[in-house]
């Protein structure tokens, strides 16, 4: 299915990442947005509040982030494509109901424009320390999909992808921006609507009395009914059987939860995205994402000038993590250097996948700013000296 032209502002615009996220959402067919203002994400909500009346969307500013995430889940069951946007304190409040979206297998998109934490932290300044929270923040076992744009253009592109993956796998998808990408203004090319591919909702066509809300096929994703279609279905956050009925048993838990996890893991190759440069002869491979990926590039150039063989693995999707590729490269390089604005998150993931086959070094930053490329360079230099 192609994008509805009414929501697509085809042309070349100058937008910050927050607003590009908003444009991506509208282009992807988002027509219900619930949110609560929080720096540095608010520009996204503001643009949606301005644009929605003209495209038939409903914007509502809720009383808090718990209400916002829950409202978008409800709206998805009413048939809408839905999104909310927030930052640190707000994403923490949303965690319980991100779990509800996982359990009800609800397509929806949550954008988190990361700022410095913990707590109120650095409201107006950059951080990348919510990466593990995005993966593990809600209780229970689950898998998540999360994208990490490095520019406003990617904020636009990845938000569309996020909507598509949410529909394909019936799951909440996180767009994990950071304050720098959220607030930097750059050129964003918005293509014509008929070149934007939109994943339709997987609506059931089962007979009314035969529909089983959580019966699934080979790709492990059940077909969905939405309210008002006449199926009179039930969904619950409790562990449930294929009828959607609660069943408190080990048997049912084992039937349900491993599939929720497997529907992402089994399809990971369809979701995983990264850019790889100069890894063929590399001694050191830098792993980074978001704004840190752009800063890393400067350090990599510096290192190459000095004759160090550096490759680059830039994560476009952070979750699911490209485990296989990181493990493969580990066999032929001396070290990984992970660059992120936190004190070690993806670092541990890289280390886990490298499994001792090479060194894994961290170039940390506590937040509030981006790395000095010199500092990254020093870690690369160290990585190149590993025997």
């Amino acid at each position, binding site marked *: 299915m192609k994008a509805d032209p*009414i929501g697509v502002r085809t042309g070349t615009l100058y937008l910050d990442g927050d607003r590009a996220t908003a444009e991506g959402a509208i282009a992807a067919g988002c*027509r*219900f947005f*619930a949110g609560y203002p929080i720096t540095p994400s608010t520009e996204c909500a503001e643009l949606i509040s301005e644009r929605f*009346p*003209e*495209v*038939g969307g*409903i914007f*509502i500013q*809720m*009383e*808090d982030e*718990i*209400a*916002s995430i*829950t*409202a*978008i*889940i*409800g*709206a*998805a*069951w*009413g*048939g*809408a494509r*839905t999104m909310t946007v927030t930052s640190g304190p707000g994403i923490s409040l949303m965690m*319980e*109901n991100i779990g*509800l979206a996982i359990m*009800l297998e609800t397509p929806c998109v949550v954008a988190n424009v990361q700022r410095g934490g913990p707590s109120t932290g650095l409201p107006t300044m950059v951080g990348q320390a919510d990466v593990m929270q995005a993966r593990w923040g809600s209780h229970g076992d689950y898998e998540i999909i999360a994208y990490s744009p490095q520019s406003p253009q990617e904020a636009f592109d990845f938000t569309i992808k996020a909507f598509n993956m949410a529909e394909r796998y019936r799951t909440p998808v996180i767009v994990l921006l950071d304050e720098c990408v959220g607030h930097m203004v750059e050129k964003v090319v918005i293509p014509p609507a008929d070149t934007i591919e939109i994943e339709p909702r997987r609506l059931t066509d089962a007979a009314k009395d035969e529909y089983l809300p959580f019966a699934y096929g080979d790709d492990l994703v059940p077909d969905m*009914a*939405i*309210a*008002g*279609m*006449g*199926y*009179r*279905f*039930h*969904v*619950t*956050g*409790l562990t449930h059987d294929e*009828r959607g*009925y*609660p069943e408190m048993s080990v048997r049912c838990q084992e039937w349900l939860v491993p599939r929720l996890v497997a529907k992402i893991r089994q399809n990971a190759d369809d979701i995983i995205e990264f850019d790889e440069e100069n890894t063929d002869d590399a001694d050191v491979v830098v792993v980074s994402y978001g704004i840190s990926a752009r800063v890393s590039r400067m350090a990599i150039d510096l290192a190459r000038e000095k004759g160090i063989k550096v490759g680059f693995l830039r994560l476009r999707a952070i979750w699911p993590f490209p485990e296989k590729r990181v493990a493969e490269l580990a066999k032929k390089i001396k070290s990984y250097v992970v660059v992120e604005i936190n004190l070690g998150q993806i670092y541990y993931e890289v280390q886990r996948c490298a499994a001792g086959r090479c060194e894994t070094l961290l170039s940390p930053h506590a937040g509030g700013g981006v790395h000095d490329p010199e500092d990254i360079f020093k870690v690369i230099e160290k990585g190149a000296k590993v025997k």
Partner: protein
Amino acid sequence: MSPKGVPEAVIAAVSSEEHPIAPFLRMDRMPHIWCSTCGIGTAVKALVAAFEKLETDLDKVSIVSGIGCTGRVAGYVRLDSFHTTHGRPIPFATGLKLANSELTVIVFSGDGDLSAIGGNHFIHAARRNMDLKVICVNNFIYGMTGGQAAPTTPLTAVTSTTPYGNAEPPFNLCHLAAACGANYVARWTALHVRRLTKAFAEILVKPGFCFVEVITPCSTLYARKNRLGTGLDIMKYYHDNTVIEHGAEPADTDIVFGGPIICGKFVDRDRPTWLEYQDQHLGEVLGDKYYRGKVLQGAGER
């Protein structure tokens, strides 16, 4: 379990017949989890009776519950039904309703769910006059978790977390809903099945935030801890102590431990709903550029 003293023949006759509300229920989920003499089932029965009375197109009705004994209602009625998280049925229902305004969206949940953890959503949905039919089963206690105090527990009442008697003033939920802007506010008890049915029939067709508080017995916990007797004793209490006062000032309807229960329809007004206000205002400001306005006009709905 057969109730004591009921002749076998009577039980056989009753159980061979389909229950009159069976078509509205998920009979494949019976038996339900509720205790005998619990008032939640009575409230469900009244809702179903209201559907029958109105001949409601049930394909277009959704029901949303939070978590608790009352939260299980969504699982037992044959509607599009959503059992959400504790305290969040109102925001869930808000999204559902706004995504498809053709739906009638009912929120059916407990007093703790709606007024403690979900209290913020409750007051804001009432303020917005969101088009939701909110039914609150008020048993003065947290049933599901074993009888702890709720924001509705009357002063001095004993619960498992107020073993010496509650020393916190409770909410009067009707007063709260009315003060925040609800279009319709009523209170009935589980004894008043006919009036409750009428109230439900009224809210099902009334636009805006409609709130019905149903005072119900929780014989297992609230009654036991407060030595109020059996479910039947509580029904008798409702019978002897209810004062019906339509149009009563909601502020004057506080519930006091051991005191009278003022019931009736307290508020019935016609503030524009959230969506009506949006459509009107944005239509005025944006004119032709307001997409929903064009669609509504096209459909001859305006």
